[in-house]
């Protein structure tokens, strides 16, 4: 199988949205376009309330991704784990689809005997190592996130360290919400390295509202722009993994 591109949105937040579209609906929209949405809820001394928890889970569920609630000390490890888990999940979805085409409708990896399953898994792992990866990071910068931002920055640097050790190429971009003027503000354009964040992050100001839904929606546009831009520059038709779990 030829490695394609895995596209993910990574949402880092600490609570409920309070403005604009329903984030779960926007996540579902992302999934339809082959983009997985992962959500990490960060706690410090505070606890995320029940509504916040529910939203985090439902966004990841409708976005075909992975969600995890963590204390900020464990953020670095979690970010890389969630990203990897979602990558495997997406690839597995594609592999399952192929299996169904070969073996019949109801067959998934789980139905194979352990030995065969092991062989299929080797393919999944291989793809996870060699596929291209595009991660758009969406950071909630509402007031309660203020003192968690240094940890978020470290976690993102750590993520680029982990992902850049892979054989496949990586592209990251970072958005924050709410932005200075709009709901979302672009902090960092597509780049393989996140080191630049060290300069940009300390200057961030935090705002009051949490427009999670609009933020996801805008992020989708940004993926599209990238795609059409690339279409103009070169006419190699890129393969994208479509989620099908």
């Amino acid at each position, binding site marked *: 199988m030829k490695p394609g591109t895995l596209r993910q949105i990574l949402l880092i937040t600490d609570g409920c949205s309070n403005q604009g579209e329903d984030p779960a609906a926007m996540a579902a929209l992302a999934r339809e376009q082959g983009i997985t949405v992962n959500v990490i809820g960060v706690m410090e001394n505070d606890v995320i309330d029940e509504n916040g928890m529910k939203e985090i889970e439902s966004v990841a569920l409708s976005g075909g991704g992975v969600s*995890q609630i963590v*204390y900020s000390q464990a953020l670095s490890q979690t970010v890389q784990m969630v990203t990897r888990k979602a990558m*495997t999940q997406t690839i*597995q979805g594609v592999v399952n689809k192929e299996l169904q085409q070969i073996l019949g409708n109801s067959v998934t990896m*789980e139905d194979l005997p352990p*030995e065969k*399953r092991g062989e299929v898994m080797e393919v999944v792992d291989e793809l996870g190592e060699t596929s291209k990866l595009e991660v758009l990071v969406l950071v909630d910068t509402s007031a309660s996130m203020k003192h968690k931002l240094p940890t978020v920055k470290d976690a993102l640097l750590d993520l680029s*360290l982990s992902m850049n*050790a*892979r054989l496949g190429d990586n592209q990251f971009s970072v958005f924050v919400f709410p932005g200075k003027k709009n709901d979302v503000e672009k902090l960092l354009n597509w780049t393989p390295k996140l080191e630049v964040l060290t300069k940009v992050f300390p200057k961030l100001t935090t705002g009051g509202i949490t427009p999670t839904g609009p933020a996801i929606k805008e992020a989708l546009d940004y993926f599209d722009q990238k795609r059409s831009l690339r279409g103009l520059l070169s006419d190699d038709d890129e393969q994208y993994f479509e989620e099908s779990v």
Partner: protein
Amino acid sequence: MMMNNTLRNQCKTLPGSVITGKWHKNNYKIIKELGFGANGIVYLAENNRQYVALKLSDNGVSIISEMNILKAFSKVQGSVLGPSFLEADDYVKNGKTMPFYVMEYIKGDGYLDFIQKKGTSWMGVFMLQLLSSLSVLHKQGWIFGDLKPENLIVTLPAYKVRCIDVGGTTLTGRSIKEFTEFFDRGYWGMGSRKADPQYDLFAVAMIMINSSYPKRFQKKGEGYTQLKEMIKQNKDLLTYQPILDKALSGKYSSADEMRNDLIGFLSRHSSKKKAPVSGQTGNASKTRQARRAQNYKQKSRIKRKYGALETVLLVTIVSLLYILYIYGQLL
């Protein structure tokens, strides 16, 4: 840290219950829980009156990757570091399928417990063992990855270090997927997370540091400076400083090279207990060598003296016996 209680509840199995494989139909009687990891629970189980370790998971994917690694690991010739792989199967409970795999049960004390009970003098020996196992592994193109004391077990009565979790093992040149921050080169800002021999050797150095700082510590500021400072502040570690420094900064090209340094250091250290610690190593080793040569000369002189004495004694006894014989003949 992470909230993953559902997994625990789902594959919680009570001692005494029997797990039967869906495919191979082998029975395993659960005796007790041995440990709990991110991907599942490891049980001590019995099959045909033999103890085995059985890992049960509700997440099919990650456990399969792990099983693949364990299989590959078992094929590495001459490596006894990890447990040997026995079989993989599925356990069906209440209509839900949970994959499991069975491996050799490695019995012994946890590495850190052992060191705390018996003292850090054991550390050197265990690190030598670990390094020779790593050397074999590296030569076959694998990097261990998630090397840490929790994964190391000292088996008795052989006093041999072995590893119980090989899930982080990665092909050389690929990315490390499983790691623990304290033992991770990337966390300390000392290099990438690409699997190379130096990644494991960094972790070996960190295990040595952890042996003297059982509670570990968090990164503050510049990683390398902090680690060097922590080594300086501990008497036991300070003696290993040149080796630790080389391993931390990735200057060893292979596990064998680090092992040779360590073996040289340990034998020097035990032959001469009050070795100067902070002196220039080059100079110190020269004088030590000279002294050793002197020792050798003295020893051989003594040997020669003894040899002469022996000859004289032998000649006297033989001639005495001869005289007695002649005397007897004459009478």
